């Protein structure tokens, strides 16, 4: 990793020397430049930033409260169509007269909450188990890793659906389900790194010199897996968004009273005859968001040049 050289104080150094000492660029600066160099990655990053801004400032951006029903303005079409519409509802209204644009905007909050919490929970569980199994080896290692194999042997959506139907729907349950199906990815990566690093001479030397396990973990293991973890994290974000949508679509996700993209699709499914816009916009929001996180993940992988199975 590049570190910053101590800043030269004027007058203390020879002038020539001072001129050669170019300030090295930081890791994040280099990554940022590379991000800008890739048009796809720039687009993805812009989309993600937009999503965050929309979610954070939802009450300021949304033209209407998400649950407000306008009973005289039900099932309005989007404004650019030739049909019955009203400019204060740019994307039309649903069957209860609620503004679709406002619901989309508020739903982004829940999307982000679910996605970020799922990544944190599955990341923490996965990293801890990966460290534990990598270090301890033996019986614990075999047990946990076989469990991970078993986990990865099933279509994760199937597990998600079954667990959700047994647990009942809810935000915490949904986050738990995503973590349940994703921890194995994090655990595998960390475990592989621990095993690799454990055998290295410099780590053995550090250990002989009295470095604690924690020190070895924080200075030698984790810095080496950050890249891989970032990639898995961005794909996990995309997956969590897909899960919210899919489980919501089947009525097993977040309770229907909360506006989420998946719930909007589920509602649209029941009334979809000619009201295509009920389903079209939430679906677009889901697709674009997943696309953005996937593209970021791809870019991370190319930039960091990591291979993940």
């Amino acid at each position, binding site marked *: 990793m590049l570190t910053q050289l101590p800043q030269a104080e004027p007058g203390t150094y020879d002038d020539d020397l001072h001129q050669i000492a170019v300030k090295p660029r930081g890791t994040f600066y280099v990554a940022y430049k590379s991000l800008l160099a890739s048009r796809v990655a720039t687009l993805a990053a812009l989309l993600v930033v937009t999503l965050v801004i929309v979610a954070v400032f939802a009450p300021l951006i949304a033209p209407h409260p998400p649950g407000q029903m306008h009973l005289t303005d039900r099932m309005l079409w989007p404004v650019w169509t030739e049909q019955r519409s009203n400019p204060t509802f740019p994307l039309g209204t649903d069957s209860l007269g609620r503004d679709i644009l406002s619901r989309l905007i508020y739903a982004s909050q829940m999307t982000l909450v679910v996605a970020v919490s799922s990544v944190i929970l599955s990341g923490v569980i996965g990293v801890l188990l990966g460290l534990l199994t990598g270090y301890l080896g033996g019986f614990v290692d075999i047990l946990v890793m076989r469990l991970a194999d078993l986990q990865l042997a*099933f279509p994760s959506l*199937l597990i998600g659906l*079954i667990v959700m*139907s*047994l647990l009942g729907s809810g935000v915490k349950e949904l986050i738990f389900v995503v973590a349940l199906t994703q921890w194995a990815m994090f655990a595998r990566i960390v475990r592989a790194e621990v095993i690799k690093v454990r055998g290295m001479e410099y780590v053995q030397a550090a250990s002989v010199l009295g470095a604690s396990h924690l020190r070895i973990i924080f200075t030698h293991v984790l810095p080496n897996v950050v890249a891989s973890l970032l990639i898995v994290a961005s794909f996990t974000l995309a997956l969590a968004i897909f899960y919210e949508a899919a489980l919501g679509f089947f*009525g097993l996700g977040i309770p229907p009273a909360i506006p989420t993209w998946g719930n909007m*699709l589920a509602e649209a499914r029941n009334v979809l005859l000619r009201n295509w816009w009920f389903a079209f916009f939430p679906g677009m929001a889901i697709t674009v968001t997943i696309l953005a996180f996937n593209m970021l993940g791809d870019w991370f992988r190319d930039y960091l040049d990591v291979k993940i199975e």
Partner: protein
Amino acid sequence: MFPALAPAHYTEAKMAYIVQRLLYGLVVIFFALTLAFLLAYVIGDPVLMYVGADAPAEVVAEYRRQLGFDRPVYVQYLEFMGGVLQGDLGQSYRQRAPVMPILLERLGYSAELAIPAIILAVVVSVPVGVLSAVRRNSLADYLARTGALVGQAAPSFWIGLMAIFFFASHLGWLPSSGRAPPGSDLLTRLSHMVMPVVILALMPLAYLTRIMRSSVLEVISEDYIRTARAKGLSERRVVIVHAVRNALIPYVTLLALQFGWILAGSMVIESVFAWPGMGRLLMDSIRLLDIPVIAAGLSMVAVIFVLLNLLADILYTVLDPRVSNK
């Protein structure tokens, strides 16, 4: 299609590897069955499903005794496993009939969608992936890559909904859902299949196109491709005979695994299109908590997954002689 392998390639190491994978697959199936048992008989209470949640306690106890659920868990477990060995996966709560025949019938319907879908995915992804790699950074490559990215991001149930709206409700070209009634003519049957098959194929299609492209790109910089060009072969021959054939090795392996994902995707697609396959059976059973069907379905999915993984392993060792050196 692939070079005939000398018998010497079937070394003991290779066989040992396959046997090891086979044993490992059996372990996974064993765990899956145990999980299914826990789900069905320990977490869910089968008796309540029979008599209803508000039945008097003595009625529940009587049923529990009659059905044998008052015995120790390990006895029930052994009985369950014994039943599985004889192809008996218990009774559906809802239909009050053995699960196995129901499951097999539905599996057949699922195959009607899954097999055409995987064929479609292969037929499209191979040429598109090769073209995209050979004409790198051309308009065709750009379109293929964008299509693959979007295809992987768009949820299939949403595409399904929009397709039903557009092709069935709006244009009226295709039936909106369901499998054609038995005895229908071929055209009717095909018209019911078009939308679910195409949409089921989209996800693996996008993935396989990306795999094919990167696989060809990797192969094309190898020395033997340069040699083939240097000895004056036409570019067409270099690509088809030398590049594509070798690029197909990782592709075929991943294809076997994609088939498993089609299985998962069919749960979603069959529900959207009301297709009476195993995916929809599972979805309905999950919603109604018909736990023996869920357990049996889970076991079935595990078996299919393990077989496909095994197939992928075998294909990989057979197609690539270098694997045996490891």
